[in-house]
């Protein structure tokens, strides 16, 4: 399945784009997506944390992704 992933902050700088498209097996979960991205972009391993949001909500590792999900990578936040 094709997933579109939104990128912010340092994650966007690492990838060099606001959004990427990734091709993963059906029923892949959040942990699988993160594994894939950390291999493609090793600099992600240097971050203090890297979370995934699905449809505007933080998602757990075992959360299964679907093609129409709005997926975003959340590097360490620093608002306020």
């Amino acid at each position: 399945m094709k997933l579109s992933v939104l990128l912010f902050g340092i994650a966007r700088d690492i990838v060099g784009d606001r959004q990427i498209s990734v091709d993963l097996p059906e029923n892949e979960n959040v942990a699988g997506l993160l594994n894939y991205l950390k291999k493609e972009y090793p600099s992600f391993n240097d971050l203090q944390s890297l979370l995934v949001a699905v449809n505007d909500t933080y998602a757990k590792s075992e959360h299964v992704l679907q093609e129409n999900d709005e997926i975003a990578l959340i590097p360490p936040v620093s608002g306020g």
Partner: protein
Amino acid sequence: MADYQEILVTENPLEVEKAYAHAQAGNTGAVNIFVGTVRNKTDTRNVVNLEYEAYEGMAIKEMRKIAEEAASKWPVEKIIIHHRVGKLRVGEATVVIAVSTPHRHDSFEACRYIIDTLKKSVPIWKKEVFEDGEEWVSAHP
């Protein structure tokens, strides 16, 4: 959205008086306001400006959740959270949180809970621009 909350992410300068005015309510005896501002230094490096970026839809959703949690823990009248994004200069307000309650200690506690939680969970990112480089805050261990 519950009408005791007012959550805003904006590129416009924040006005403390406006947040205060919205927090005022008939049964309010106390309003606590927290304002985060751009400091002129981080450790010993001079900050030229800050850039804030938000994942706006989710940021608003997370701030609403935080307001709901605060409202479930303390007897709040109103909760205002205004967060600035874009390019900010030293001295400008980055966030204004105003919480009104009947009694004062609740206003302090709820406001502090909101800013502490916001800093942990709301998808907003700050880049510090120094005279000699730039850096996403807290990105690396």
